[in-house]
Protein backbone atom coordinates (compact mmCIF):
# COMPACT_ATOMS: atom_id res chain seq x y z
CA UNK A 1 0.00 0.00 0.00
CA UNK A 2 1.10 3.54 -0.70
CA UNK A 3 1.14 4.59 2.97
CA UNK A 4 3.18 1.59 4.09
CA UNK A 5 5.77 2.12 1.37
CA UNK A 6 5.98 5.80 2.21
CA UNK A 7 6.43 4.98 5.90
CA UNK A 8 9.26 2.61 5.08
CA UNK A 9 11.06 5.24 2.98
CA UNK A 10 10.34 8.38 5.01
CA UNK A 11 10.15 7.46 8.71
CA UNK A 12 13.88 6.59 9.00
CA UNK A 13 14.52 10.30 8.31
CA UNK A 14 12.08 11.62 10.88
CA UNK A 15 14.83 12.68 13.31
CA UNK A 16 16.64 14.56 10.54
CA UNK A 17 13.38 16.22 9.54
CA UNK A 18 12.66 17.26 13.11
CA UNK A 19 16.22 18.51 13.66
CA UNK A 20 16.03 20.75 10.60
CA UNK A 21 12.60 22.07 11.57
CA UNK A 22 13.78 22.72 15.14
CA UNK A 23 16.74 24.75 13.93
CA UNK A 24 14.75 26.68 11.34
CA UNK A 25 11.77 27.53 13.54
CA UNK A 26 13.64 27.63 16.87
CA UNK A 27 10.50 26.36 18.55
CA UNK A 28 9.84 22.70 19.42
CA UNK A 29 6.06 22.96 19.25
CA UNK A 30 6.01 24.65 15.86
CA UNK A 31 8.68 22.24 14.62
CA UNK A 32 6.57 19.22 15.52
CA UNK A 33 3.59 20.73 13.76
CA UNK A 34 5.59 21.62 10.66
CA UNK A 35 7.13 18.15 10.42
CA UNK A 36 3.73 16.51 10.68
CA UNK A 37 2.47 18.84 7.96
CA UNK A 38 5.49 18.20 5.78
CA UNK A 39 5.25 14.42 6.12
CA UNK A 40 1.63 14.41 5.03
CA UNK A 41 2.52 16.71 2.18
CA UNK A 42 5.36 14.38 1.22
CA UNK A 43 2.90 11.49 1.18
CA UNK A 44 0.86 13.42 -1.37
CA UNK A 45 3.95 13.94 -3.54
CA UNK A 46 5.23 10.41 -3.00
CA UNK A 47 4.21 9.19 -6.47
CA UNK A 48 6.62 11.75 -7.93
CA UNK A 49 9.53 10.53 -5.82
CA UNK A 50 12.02 8.72 -8.07
CA UNK A 51 13.62 6.61 -5.37
CA UNK A 52 16.96 8.36 -5.06
CA UNK A 53 18.04 10.01 -1.83
CA UNK A 54 14.89 10.01 0.24
CA UNK A 55 16.50 12.12 2.94
CA UNK A 56 17.25 15.07 0.64
CA UNK A 57 13.84 14.74 -0.98
CA UNK A 58 12.08 14.75 2.38
CA UNK A 59 14.16 17.52 3.94
CA UNK A 60 13.44 19.71 0.94
CA UNK A 61 9.73 19.42 1.70
CA UNK A 62 10.31 20.00 5.42
CA UNK A 63 12.41 23.05 4.61
CA UNK A 64 9.79 24.55 2.31
CA UNK A 65 7.03 23.88 4.81
CA UNK A 66 9.09 25.54 7.55
CA UNK A 67 9.76 28.61 5.41
CA UNK A 68 6.06 28.91 4.63
CA UNK A 69 5.34 28.75 8.36
CA UNK A 70 7.97 31.38 9.12
CA UNK A 71 6.50 33.71 6.48
CA UNK A 72 3.04 33.16 7.93
CA UNK A 73 4.41 33.83 11.40
CA UNK A 74 5.94 37.12 10.33
CA UNK A 75 2.52 38.07 9.00
CA UNK A 76 0.83 37.52 12.35
CA UNK A 77 3.54 38.87 14.64
CA UNK A 78 1.29 41.65 15.91
CA UNK A 79 -1.22 39.07 17.10
CA UNK A 80 -0.98 39.29 20.92
CA UNK A 81 -1.89 35.65 21.48
CA UNK A 82 0.65 34.30 19.03
CA UNK A 83 2.86 31.88 20.98
CA UNK A 84 5.28 31.49 18.07
CA UNK A 85 6.23 35.15 18.03
CA UNK A 86 7.03 34.95 21.72
CA UNK A 87 9.21 31.89 21.22
CA UNK A 88 11.08 33.56 18.42
CA UNK A 89 11.85 36.50 20.61
CA UNK A 90 13.08 34.29 23.44
CA UNK A 91 15.20 32.15 21.15
CA UNK A 92 16.99 35.14 19.72
CA UNK A 93 19.97 36.35 21.77
CA UNK A 94 19.18 39.84 20.52
CA UNK A 95 21.78 42.58 20.27
CA UNK A 96 24.09 41.16 22.90
CA UNK A 97 25.40 37.79 21.70
CA UNK A 98 28.49 38.21 23.90
CA UNK A 99 26.32 37.99 26.97
CA UNK A 100 25.18 34.57 25.79
CA UNK A 101 28.74 33.40 25.25
CA UNK A 102 30.13 34.00 28.74
CA UNK A 103 30.68 31.72 31.65
CA UNK A 104 30.53 27.95 31.71
CA UNK A 105 27.77 27.70 29.13
CA UNK A 106 30.09 26.85 26.26
CA UNK A 107 27.66 24.39 24.76
CA UNK A 108 24.74 26.75 24.70
CA UNK A 109 27.00 29.59 23.51
CA UNK A 110 27.70 27.92 20.20
CA UNK A 111 24.10 26.76 20.14
CA UNK A 112 22.86 30.30 20.54
CA UNK A 113 25.36 31.74 18.07
CA UNK A 114 24.07 29.31 15.47
CA UNK A 115 20.46 30.06 16.36
CA UNK A 116 21.15 33.76 15.81
CA UNK A 117 22.38 33.30 12.23
CA UNK A 118 20.05 34.16 9.33
CA UNK A 119 17.96 31.14 8.38
CA UNK A 120 19.63 30.74 4.95
CA UNK A 121 23.04 30.42 6.62
CA UNK A 122 21.81 28.43 9.62
CA UNK A 123 20.24 25.71 7.52
CA UNK A 124 23.50 25.14 5.60
CA UNK A 125 25.42 24.63 8.85
CA UNK A 126 22.77 22.30 10.26
CA UNK A 127 22.63 20.19 7.10
CA UNK A 128 26.41 20.02 6.80
CA UNK A 129 27.54 19.64 10.41
CA UNK A 130 24.61 17.83 12.03
CA UNK A 131 23.27 15.84 9.11
CA UNK A 132 26.66 15.52 7.37
CA UNK A 133 25.16 16.09 3.95
CA UNK A 134 27.19 16.74 0.81
CA UNK A 135 27.14 20.13 -0.92
CA UNK A 136 25.11 18.58 -3.69
CA UNK A 137 22.42 17.33 -1.29
CA UNK A 138 22.35 20.61 0.64
CA UNK A 139 21.87 22.37 -2.70
CA UNK A 140 18.93 20.12 -3.43
CA UNK A 141 17.31 20.72 -0.05
CA UNK A 142 17.78 24.48 -0.11
CA UNK A 143 17.08 24.97 -3.81
CA UNK A 144 20.24 26.94 -4.63
CA UNK A 145 23.37 26.01 -6.66
CA UNK A 146 26.19 24.18 -4.90
CA UNK A 147 28.41 27.26 -5.28
CA UNK A 148 25.91 29.28 -3.28
CA UNK A 149 25.86 26.56 -0.63
CA UNK A 150 29.65 26.87 -0.35
CA UNK A 151 29.55 30.64 0.00
CA UNK A 152 26.71 30.51 2.53
CA UNK A 153 28.52 27.88 4.56
CA UNK A 154 31.64 29.99 4.55
CA UNK A 155 29.75 33.13 5.57
CA UNK A 156 28.05 31.21 8.34
CA UNK A 157 31.32 29.83 9.65
CA UNK A 158 32.97 33.24 9.46
CA UNK A 159 30.16 34.65 11.58
CA UNK A 160 30.38 31.84 14.13
CA UNK A 161 34.17 32.30 14.36
CA UNK A 162 33.79 36.06 14.74
CA UNK A 163 31.27 35.68 17.57
CA UNK A 164 33.66 33.26 19.28
CA UNK A 165 36.65 35.59 18.82
CA UNK A 166 34.75 38.61 20.12
CA UNK A 167 33.71 36.67 23.18
CA UNK A 168 37.31 35.57 23.76
CA UNK A 169 38.58 39.16 23.44
CA UNK A 170 36.00 40.41 25.89
CA UNK A 171 36.99 37.74 28.38
CA UNK A 172 40.66 38.71 28.16
CA UNK A 173 39.97 42.41 28.73
CA UNK A 174 37.55 41.75 31.57
Amino acid at each position, binding site marked *: *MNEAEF*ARVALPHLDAA*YTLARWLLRDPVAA*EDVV*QDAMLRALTYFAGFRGTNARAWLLQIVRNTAYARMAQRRGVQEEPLDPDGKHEHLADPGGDPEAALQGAEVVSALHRALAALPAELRECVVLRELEEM*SYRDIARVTGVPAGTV*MSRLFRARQM*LLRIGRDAGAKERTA
Partner: protein
Amino acid sequence: MTDATASFPPAGVPPACEEMQLLIQADLDGELDAAATAVLAAHLRDCAGCAALQRELANLSGRLHAELRPEAAPASLRRALEARLAPAAAAPPAPGGFRRRLAPLLSFGAGAAIAASLALMLPRTGADPDGELVAGHIRALQPGHLTDVASSDQHTVKPWFDGRIDYAPPVMDFVAQGFPLVGGRLDYIGGRPVAALVYRRDKHPIDLFVWPSQGSAEPVMDTRNGYNVLRWARDGMAFRAVSDLNAKELADFARLWQGAS
Protein backbone atom coordinates in the same frame (compact mmCIF):
# COMPACT_ATOMS: atom_id res chain seq x y z
CA MET B 1 30.77 30.50 -7.68
CA THR B 2 30.39 34.17 -8.56
CA ASP B 3 28.21 34.51 -5.52
CA ALA B 4 30.95 32.86 -3.48
CA THR B 5 33.75 35.20 -4.45
CA ALA B 6 31.69 38.36 -4.59
CA SER B 7 29.96 38.23 -1.26
CA PHE B 8 32.28 37.40 1.56
CA PRO B 9 35.99 38.17 1.19
CA PRO B 10 36.93 39.97 4.38
CA ALA B 11 38.84 43.20 3.76
CA GLY B 12 42.60 42.83 3.50
CA VAL B 13 42.71 39.21 2.37
CA PRO B 14 45.08 38.77 -0.62
CA PRO B 15 43.29 37.60 -3.80
CA ALA B 16 45.17 34.30 -3.80
CA CYS B 17 43.90 33.60 -0.28
CA GLU B 18 40.32 34.47 -1.22
CA GLU B 19 40.52 31.63 -3.73
CA MET B 20 41.95 29.34 -1.10
CA GLN B 21 39.30 29.94 1.54
CA LEU B 22 36.65 27.89 -0.22
CA LEU B 23 39.23 25.17 -0.92
CA ILE B 24 40.11 25.03 2.78
CA GLN B 25 36.47 24.66 3.62
CA ALA B 26 35.79 22.10 0.88
CA ASP B 27 38.79 20.10 2.06
CA LEU B 28 37.46 19.98 5.62
CA ASP B 29 34.01 19.04 4.30
CA GLY B 30 35.51 16.16 2.30
CA GLU B 31 34.53 17.71 -1.02
CA LEU B 32 37.96 18.37 -2.56
CA ASP B 33 39.48 16.26 -5.32
CA ALA B 34 43.14 15.18 -5.30
CA ALA B 35 44.42 17.88 -7.66
CA ALA B 36 42.85 20.72 -5.69
CA THR B 37 44.06 19.16 -2.45
CA ALA B 38 47.63 19.34 -3.74
CA VAL B 39 47.23 23.00 -4.72
CA LEU B 40 45.83 23.78 -1.29
CA ALA B 41 48.59 21.92 0.54
CA ALA B 42 51.23 23.90 -1.35
CA HIS B 43 49.54 27.18 -0.45
CA LEU B 44 49.14 26.28 3.21
CA ARG B 45 52.87 25.59 3.56
CA ASP B 46 53.62 29.19 2.61
CA CYS B 47 50.67 31.11 4.04
CA ALA B 48 50.38 31.45 7.79
CA GLY B 49 47.05 33.28 7.48
CA CYS B 50 45.34 30.48 5.56
CA ALA B 51 46.90 27.84 7.80
CA ALA B 52 45.42 29.65 10.78
CA LEU B 53 42.01 29.82 9.08
CA GLN B 54 42.19 26.10 8.41
CA ARG B 55 42.83 25.42 12.10
CA GLU B 56 39.98 27.70 13.13
CA LEU B 57 37.51 26.11 10.72
CA ALA B 58 38.56 22.60 11.72
CA ASN B 59 38.16 23.54 15.36
CA LEU B 60 34.73 25.03 14.72
CA SER B 61 33.56 21.92 12.86
CA GLY B 62 34.81 19.76 15.69
CA ARG B 63 32.92 21.78 18.25
CA LEU B 64 29.72 21.84 16.20
CA HIS B 65 29.97 18.09 15.81
CA ALA B 66 30.62 17.52 19.48
CA GLU B 67 28.13 19.96 20.95
CA LEU B 68 25.18 19.90 18.57
CA ARG B 69 23.64 16.52 18.15
CA PRO B 70 20.78 15.74 15.81
CA GLU B 71 17.58 15.82 17.83
CA ALA B 72 15.28 12.86 18.21
CA ALA B 73 11.78 13.53 16.99
CA PRO B 74 9.28 13.56 19.88
CA ALA B 75 7.69 10.18 20.51
CA SER B 76 4.27 11.81 20.16
CA LEU B 77 5.09 12.92 16.62
CA ARG B 78 6.45 9.52 15.64
CA ARG B 79 3.42 7.73 17.02
CA ALA B 80 0.99 10.11 15.35
CA LEU B 81 2.67 9.60 11.99
CA GLU B 82 2.93 5.85 12.39
CA ALA B 83 -0.76 5.69 13.21
CA ARG B 84 -1.54 7.84 10.20
CA LEU B 85 0.65 5.85 7.83
CA ALA B 86 -0.20 2.34 8.92
CA PRO B 87 -4.00 2.19 9.08
CA ALA B 88 -3.99 -1.53 8.38
CA ALA B 89 -1.91 -2.20 11.49
CA ALA B 90 -4.04 0.05 13.69
CA ALA B 91 -6.74 -1.24 16.00
CA PRO B 92 -10.18 -1.93 14.50
CA PRO B 93 -12.01 1.31 13.79
CA ALA B 94 -13.80 2.68 16.80
CA PRO B 95 -16.19 5.60 17.15
CA GLY B 96 -13.51 7.43 19.14
CA GLY B 97 -11.14 7.48 16.19
CA PHE B 98 -10.54 11.17 16.35
CA ARG B 99 -9.64 11.06 20.02
CA ARG B 100 -7.42 8.08 19.39
CA ARG B 101 -5.21 10.20 17.20
CA LEU B 102 -4.72 12.69 20.00
CA ALA B 103 -4.17 10.12 22.73
CA PRO B 104 -0.42 9.78 22.05
CA LEU B 105 -0.03 13.51 22.49
CA LEU B 106 -1.79 13.40 25.83
CA SER B 107 0.27 10.51 27.14
CA PHE B 108 3.45 12.32 26.18
CA GLY B 109 3.23 14.46 29.30
CA ALA B 110 1.55 17.47 30.75
CA GLY B 111 2.30 21.14 30.60
CA ALA B 112 2.13 24.22 28.50
CA ALA B 113 3.90 22.69 25.52
CA ILE B 114 1.26 20.00 25.23
CA ALA B 115 -1.55 22.49 25.60
CA ALA B 116 0.04 24.61 22.91
CA SER B 117 0.54 21.72 20.51
CA LEU B 118 -3.05 20.64 21.00
CA ALA B 119 -4.16 24.17 20.32
CA LEU B 120 -2.18 24.11 17.12
CA MET B 121 -3.38 20.73 15.96
CA LEU B 122 -7.02 20.63 16.96
CA PRO B 123 -8.38 23.46 14.86
CA ARG B 124 -6.48 22.27 11.83
CA THR B 125 -8.14 18.92 11.63
CA GLY B 126 -11.36 20.05 13.23
CA ALA B 127 -11.95 23.20 11.21
CA ASP B 128 -10.63 22.13 7.85
CA PRO B 129 -11.74 18.61 7.00
CA ASP B 130 -12.19 19.82 3.41
CA GLY B 131 -8.45 20.36 3.08
CA GLU B 132 -7.86 16.79 4.26
CA LEU B 133 -10.50 15.45 1.92
CA VAL B 134 -8.92 17.20 -1.05
CA ALA B 135 -5.50 15.86 0.01
CA GLY B 136 -7.06 12.39 0.18
CA HIS B 137 -8.55 12.87 -3.25
CA ILE B 138 -5.23 14.02 -4.73
CA ARG B 139 -3.39 11.07 -3.13
CA ALA B 140 -5.95 8.72 -4.61
CA LEU B 141 -5.42 10.15 -8.09
CA GLN B 142 -1.97 8.60 -8.16
CA PRO B 143 -1.86 5.57 -10.44
CA GLY B 144 -3.43 2.50 -8.90
CA HIS B 145 -4.65 4.24 -5.76
CA LEU B 146 -8.08 5.42 -6.73
CA THR B 147 -9.89 2.36 -5.42
CA ASP B 148 -9.26 -0.42 -2.93
CA VAL B 149 -12.22 -2.32 -4.37
CA ALA B 150 -12.79 -1.76 -8.08
CA SER B 151 -16.34 -2.56 -9.05
CA SER B 152 -19.26 -0.89 -10.73
CA ASP B 153 -21.60 -3.14 -8.74
CA GLN B 154 -22.97 -1.45 -5.64
CA HIS B 155 -23.66 -4.88 -4.17
CA THR B 156 -19.94 -5.61 -4.32
CA VAL B 157 -18.76 -2.23 -3.08
CA LYS B 158 -21.13 -1.92 -0.13
CA PRO B 159 -20.24 -5.21 1.60
CA TRP B 160 -16.54 -4.50 1.04
CA PHE B 161 -16.77 -1.85 3.77
CA ASP B 162 -18.16 -4.37 6.28
CA GLY B 163 -15.65 -4.84 9.07
CA ARG B 164 -13.40 -2.12 7.68
CA ILE B 165 -15.41 0.73 9.15
CA ASP B 166 -17.97 0.82 11.92
CA TYR B 167 -20.84 2.08 9.79
CA ALA B 168 -22.55 1.11 6.55
CA PRO B 169 -22.27 3.84 3.93
CA PRO B 170 -25.07 4.00 1.37
CA VAL B 171 -23.81 2.98 -2.05
CA MET B 172 -25.65 3.95 -5.24
CA ASP B 173 -24.89 3.57 -8.89
CA PHE B 174 -25.91 6.35 -11.26
CA VAL B 175 -24.59 4.89 -14.49
CA ALA B 176 -27.85 5.66 -16.28
CA GLN B 177 -27.48 9.33 -15.35
CA GLY B 178 -23.84 9.46 -16.47
CA PHE B 179 -22.15 9.00 -13.08
CA PRO B 180 -21.00 5.37 -13.06
CA LEU B 181 -19.71 3.87 -9.83
CA VAL B 182 -16.05 2.86 -10.19
CA GLY B 183 -15.30 1.42 -6.77
CA GLY B 184 -14.61 2.20 -3.15
CA ARG B 185 -11.71 3.09 -0.96
CA LEU B 186 -10.85 3.47 2.69
CA ASP B 187 -9.35 6.86 3.52
CA TYR B 188 -8.11 8.37 6.75
CA ILE B 189 -9.65 11.75 7.53
CA GLY B 190 -9.17 13.48 10.87
CA GLY B 191 -7.50 10.33 12.16
CA ARG B 192 -10.45 8.02 11.53
CA PRO B 193 -11.22 5.67 8.65
CA VAL B 194 -13.77 7.08 6.23
CA ALA B 195 -15.54 5.44 3.31
CA ALA B 196 -14.77 6.97 -0.08
CA LEU B 197 -16.96 5.99 -3.01
CA VAL B 198 -15.41 6.60 -6.38
CA TYR B 199 -17.48 7.73 -9.36
CA ARG B 200 -16.66 9.04 -12.79
CA ARG B 201 -18.19 11.74 -14.92
CA ASP B 202 -16.58 11.36 -18.36
CA LYS B 203 -12.86 11.59 -17.57
CA HIS B 204 -13.31 13.21 -14.14
CA PRO B 205 -13.05 11.05 -11.05
CA ILE B 206 -15.33 12.01 -8.18
CA ASP B 207 -14.56 10.97 -4.62
CA LEU B 208 -17.61 10.84 -2.42
CA PHE B 209 -16.62 10.67 1.25
CA VAL B 210 -19.34 9.41 3.58
CA TRP B 211 -19.37 9.20 7.35
CA PRO B 212 -21.97 9.33 10.12
CA SER B 213 -22.72 12.92 11.08
CA GLN B 214 -25.55 15.39 11.28
CA GLY B 215 -25.64 18.44 9.05
CA SER B 216 -27.61 20.57 6.67
CA ALA B 217 -29.31 18.78 3.77
CA GLU B 218 -28.77 21.82 1.57
CA PRO B 219 -25.64 21.32 -0.63
CA VAL B 220 -22.84 23.84 -0.05
CA MET B 221 -20.10 24.32 -2.62
CA ASP B 222 -16.51 25.19 -1.75
CA THR B 223 -13.21 25.07 -3.63
CA ARG B 224 -9.84 23.91 -2.37
CA ASN B 225 -6.65 23.91 -4.46
CA GLY B 226 -8.76 24.12 -7.60
CA TYR B 227 -10.97 21.19 -6.60
CA ASN B 228 -14.68 21.58 -6.03
CA VAL B 229 -15.93 20.32 -2.68
CA LEU B 230 -19.68 19.88 -2.32
CA ARG B 231 -21.09 18.94 1.05
CA TRP B 232 -24.50 17.88 2.23
CA ALA B 233 -26.04 15.56 4.79
CA ARG B 234 -28.79 13.00 4.68
CA ASP B 235 -30.14 10.24 6.92
CA GLY B 236 -27.49 10.83 9.57
CA MET B 237 -24.62 10.69 7.09
CA ALA B 238 -22.33 13.53 5.98
CA PHE B 239 -21.38 13.57 2.31
CA ARG B 240 -18.47 15.36 0.68
CA ALA B 241 -18.00 15.13 -3.07
CA VAL B 242 -14.50 16.15 -4.19
CA SER B 243 -13.62 16.48 -7.87
CA ASP B 244 -12.12 18.62 -10.58
CA LEU B 245 -15.49 18.32 -12.28
CA ASN B 246 -17.26 21.65 -12.84
CA ALA B 247 -19.52 22.90 -10.08
CA LYS B 248 -22.74 22.54 -12.07
CA GLU B 249 -22.32 18.86 -12.88
CA LEU B 250 -21.13 18.15 -9.36
CA ALA B 251 -24.35 19.74 -8.10
CA ASP B 252 -26.28 17.45 -10.49
CA PHE B 253 -24.50 14.53 -8.85
CA ALA B 254 -25.59 15.74 -5.40
CA ARG B 255 -29.19 16.11 -6.56
CA LEU B 256 -29.18 12.50 -7.74
CA TRP B 257 -28.19 11.45 -4.25
CA GLN B 258 -30.81 13.61 -2.62
CA GLY B 259 -33.54 12.27 -4.90
CA ALA B 260 -32.47 8.67 -4.38
CA SER B 261 -34.25 6.50 -1.89
